[in-house]
């Protein structure tokens, strides 16, 4: 019995394609394992250029394209509605916004969760801040958002000025100042403590953030 030429070619092509898919999944497995490594750096490097990102805005279900460095300082909060610490950060941001402390800043809550997730959290459901879902995993990777909450301060030139976990109002104020201060004064931004990555992460809460050479914090 002879196999038709087409079938012989097709089976090899299919085998080759399955192999490629296997490699893709294998690489993803490696990334996932790296992501759960608690020693992995969190947040983008201070002083680096912030990456552009796309997100689906929950308010009107439209896709928005954010280009840091467009002249508007930006405060990005990577949060998840199912994360209690993130709820605290959202509340702190809401309080600061209500008090007018974030005026002149573009504040954006970014999540990887679908819109329906917002309903599980009072803080997310009621916030007046702009909230959206990141559309590409590359965005989270570009910002080093390996865990939440993560607050990233970006100045008007699109340069990352601070990136760290944060949940408290005082930290939000410090980050907003980092966004707004002119370059000459950015060197003196003091950020003293990191917020816990998770509620039980007391060790992280007690660890002070280290100032970097470029004036930000990690």
């Amino acid at each position, binding site marked *: 019995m002879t196999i*038709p*030429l*087409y*079938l012989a*070619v*097709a*089976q090899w*092509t*299919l085998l080759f*394609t*399955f192999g490629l*898919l296997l490699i*893709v*999944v294998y690489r*993803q497995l490696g990334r996932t394992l790296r992501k759960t490594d608690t020693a992995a750096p969190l947040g983008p490097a201070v002083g680096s250029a912030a990456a*552009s990102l*796309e997100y*689906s805005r929950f308010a009107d*279900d*439209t*896709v928005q*394209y954010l280009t840091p460095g467009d002249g508007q300082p930006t405060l990005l909060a990577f949060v998840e509605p*199912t994360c209690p610490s993130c709820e605290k950060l959202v509340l702190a941001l809401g309080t600061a916004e209500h008090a007018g402390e974030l005026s002149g800043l573009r504040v954006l809550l970014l999540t*990887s*969760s*679908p819109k*329906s*997730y917002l*309903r*599980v959290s009072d803080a997310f459901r009621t916030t007046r801040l702009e909230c959206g*879902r*990141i*559309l*590409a*995993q*590359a*965005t*989270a990777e570009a910002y080093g958002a390996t865990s939440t909450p993560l607050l990233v301060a970006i100045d008007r030139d699109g340069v990352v000025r601070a990136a760290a976990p944060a949940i408290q109002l005082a930290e939000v104020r410090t980050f907003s100042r980092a966004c707004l201060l002119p370059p000459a004064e950015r060197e003196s931004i003091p950020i003293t403590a990191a917020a816990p990555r998770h509620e039980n992460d007391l060790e992280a809460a007690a660890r002070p953030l280290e100032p970097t050479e470029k004036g930000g914090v990690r």
Partner: protein
Amino acid sequence: MEVLALCAKTALACVLIVAGSAKLADPASFASTVRLFIPFRVAWPLLSAIAIGVSLGELAVGLASLTLPAITALNALVFAIACAFVGVSALGYAFHRGRSCRCFGALSQRKFDAAGVLRSIVIAGVAAVALAHVGAAALQLDATARLLLIAAAGLLAVAAFTAARVRGPGSEPEPEVVAQ
């Protein structure tokens, strides 16, 4: 030459199956790319419908091309689609350089750039090779072989869909919503 043409044909069919399935795994992301090429404001549900339609179209043509090799008109259709890829890549390079093309959904992080245009041209070239005449004897498939090909193509589509879901954002299941 026959082997080359059949390789090109099956490879392109697999590319279309993988691309279509991967896009279907996260239509919202692909819809954002579709939006780039529509010059006027379009409602999000319509964009999603277009994205799903394009993805299903790619998947259907890929499946048909792989499992119905004797229909030569499908080769011309695949070539036309490949030419459309070149056009889209060129437009993306001209007007949306650096934006994600999501050509393979979450499986690839390719952007609209010069390399993307080159890749599309290569794909169109491969599609042109697949247009070469192949003897009818080489394309003869009995019912069992055809069923096996359909099963393999379906498996490939599911594998690509699953891999794209794993790589894409927001792959977690919807949470239970407690009554407020």
